[in-house]
């Protein structure tokens, strides 16, 4: 493995790990706020129980999100110092704003988690709203930085150095709107379906449990609108890619030659040797229409750039197919659930739908990982589209395979632990779950020599 490949792999692995927790950090706070709000409105204690459960899940996940995010902020420099030296002044603005979103989130998460009995119910709900807001804003700001990498603006190049820098340009890159919208919906859809799937599974075992029925309802209220909108926003994103990064579009569609009336290819295998995509289901003129809303429009193919500058086409194409397929499945399940809800039929009593929801549980996360592969691998060989090559940005330190393997092991280990802890959370039956770590800890302390109650 070359050092460049090791650096790219480490970056991809760290981001791929972080994004899972980041999405949960965006979605779960919204769920717990909705549940707590329902509790205040209806007085149903089960909603409160739900809010507390989700809050506890958030504690664990947030910690992993925070530390893996910290790793990323330094890793950008550890692995690609050339990129940070080049781009720091230009993507600094979204990252600084993101820093404040983190602060907001971190502060009010502390208030929320530990403040159940210390502040008024309204103030508590308010703290939850700020946590949810901080989460969305963090996601939006950091994706802005990425949008700038895809469609850089706000500077001029003179002798290989950027000059005339506009520090606010990164907030206005053409790719900002489609990418941030798409990412935010992805977070809501993925978390919502993930949670819905778990409770659907519990309902399949015993559909009478009030707790799981309410949980399913709240989760779907968040997931359904997001999942229905996602393919539309995805199309919006694709049209921006067609404008700003035609070679990425060519890679994700497996379009090797420049042609008018390009077909939409569903599935298939892009053969880099023969420069053609084989075994795809082709819809004539489909790609031209989707990209430019004109079935006759010319779509530029990979033949426009030297062979050495092609991204790994099969990876990008297949990742794209996976995202789109999962996206349509999720939108379909969302519409199905909405249809039942509109007719006031309990979702919990349709076993087929429950199974469909169980199947959808991991799909948002898989689609998101695939989407990022499309965005990032599809941009190669550039780290900043058309301006800075990844190979020129990598650190000179040799032996990068060692940190890559080290961090991979660390993250695999953490994933196993998180899954184990969350399983214990989910499977604990609602009634007996009230004991908390601190309570047992304090009791243990007393029996081992501490003071008795009230010391």
């Amino acid at each position: 493995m070359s050092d460049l490949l090791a650096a790219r792999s480490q970056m991809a692995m760290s981001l791929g790990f972080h994004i899972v927790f980041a999405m949960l950090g965006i979605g779960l706070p919204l769920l717990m706020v909705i549940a707590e709000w329902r509790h205040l409105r209806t007085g149903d204690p089960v909603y409160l129980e739900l809010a507390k459960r989700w809050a506890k899940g958030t504690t664990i996940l947030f910690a992993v999100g925070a530390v893996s995010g910290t790793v990323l902020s330094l890793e950008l420099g550890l692995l690609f110092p050339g990129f940070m030296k080049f781009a720091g002044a230009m993507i600094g603005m979204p990252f600084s704003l993101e820093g404040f979103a983190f602060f907001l989130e971190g502060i009010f998460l502390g208030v929320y988690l530990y403040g159940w009995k210390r502040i008024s119910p309204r103030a508590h709900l308010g703290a939850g709203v700020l946590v949810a807001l901080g989460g969305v804003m963090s996601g939006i700001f950091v994706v802005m930085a990425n949008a700038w990498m895809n469609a850089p603006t706000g500077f001029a190049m003179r002798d290989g150095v950027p000059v005339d820098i506009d520090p606010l340009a990164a907030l206005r890159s053409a790719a900002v709107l489609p990418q941030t919208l798409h990412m935010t919906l992805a977070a809501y859809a993925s978390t919502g379906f993930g949670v819905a799937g778990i409770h659907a599974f519990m309902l399949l075992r015993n559909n009478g449990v009030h707790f799981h029925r309410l949980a399913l309802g709240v989760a779907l209220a968040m997931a359904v609108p997001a999942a229905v909108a996602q393919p539309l926003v995805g199309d919006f994103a694709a049209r921006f890619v067609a404008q700003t990064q035609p070679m990425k579009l060519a890679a994700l569609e497996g379009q090797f030659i420049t042609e008018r009336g390009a077909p939409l290819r569903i599935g298939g295998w892009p053969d880099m040797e023969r420069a053609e995509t084989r075994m795809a289901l082709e819809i004539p003129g489909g790609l031209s229409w989707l990209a430019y809303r004109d079935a006759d429009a010319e779509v530029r193919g990979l033949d426009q750039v030297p062979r050495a500058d092609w991204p790994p086409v099969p990876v990008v194409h297949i990742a794209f197919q996976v995202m789109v397929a999962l996206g349509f499945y999720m939108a379909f399940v969302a519409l199905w659930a909405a249809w039942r809800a509109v007719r006031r039929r309990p979702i919990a009593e349709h076993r087929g739908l429950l199974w469909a929801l169980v199947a959808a549980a991991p799909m948002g996360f898989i689609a998101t990982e695939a989407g990022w592969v499309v965005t990032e691998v599809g941009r190669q060989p550039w780290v900043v589209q058309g301006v800075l090559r990844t190979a020129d940005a990598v650190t000179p330190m040799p032996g990068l395979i060692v940190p890559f393997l080290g961090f991979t092991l660390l993250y695999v280990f953490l994933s196993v632990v998180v899954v184990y802890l969350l399983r214990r959370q989910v499977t604990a039956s609602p009634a007996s779950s009230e004991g908390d770590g601190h309570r047992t800890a304090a009791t243990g302390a007393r029996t081992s020599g501490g003071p008795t109650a009230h010391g």
Partner: protein
Amino acid sequence: MADLLTLPNVLAAAILVSLQAYVLFGGADFGAGMWDLLARGPRREFQRTLIAKAIGPIWEANHVWFVLAVVVLFSCFPPAFAMLTTELHVPLSLMLVGIVLRGTAFVFRSADERRDAVQRRWGLVFSLSSVFTPLLLGICAGAIASGAVARAAQMTGASFTGRFIVPWTSPFILGVGAFTLALFAFLAAVYLTVEAEGHEPLQEDFRRRALGAAVAVFACAAATLVLSRRYDPGMTHTLVNSPWAVPLQLLTGIAAVGAILALVTRRFRVARLAAGAQVSLIVWGWALDIFPSIIPGALTIMEAASPAGTLRATLIVLAVGAVILLPSLAYLFRIFKSRPSAFERLEDLSADV
């Protein structure tokens, strides 16, 4: 004086304030982890519970100071960030491993409900990484101040160890690491005396620990000074010769003695104030020592600064952010850090999830 207030200097100062806050709050969290490792005596488990209670609600917020410093550094001084992350790749990566293990182990430990061997093992991971991480943080600070980063950056032809290991492993730099460790332990013990308010035996436990740590701080400071004379003569030069050095060291000394006197006379809140002042002065001393460089021997603050537009925009974000966030932070601290103390909160169990 006016030429000190340039835009780059102001942003460098903002980074420093952020680091100072990280050391004051996050550093104390690390130190508390060390005391978790060293918990001894009849009240051992009780000490650990107090520590967990004291860190619980605020470690996330405390941690963001570090992220903020990193972010402002790479936006406003990109070449400095690139040089640091390149030359200090190894210690920074190790530090990240420590940060990951500590944050997650702390939460895993408190999320786990059983008090069994598994949970104790998380406790061990948490406390060991609380030792390991500040050591590396100190090493990085020492490597910057001693000019080791700049020297490494010139060794483009050197072997892997020659460029990426040897420069930051000089005895002086390792001494700075140990000093940082002692300092955080001291800070944490002092804070914990206040957290234990309402329970005298526990307070006494931490008072003794604070005094012990104070001795360690002095020992490490003396040792580093000697080591710097032997191994990094350039370092002592600035330590002794810069016009700020003497008054600043005098003030630091006064704060240190004040903290110890307050501990001896059991004025714990005064001790907390004095210890905080002492540590802040050390951070500022470190910075004034390298000023006007950002990486001594390689880059000055001026040379490394981003264009004025970026600096100005960042400054505005920082100002607006401060207006929103400082009251929020004060609110968090008021809820959890005023009365009742962490000890009294042990009784208030249902307050938590």
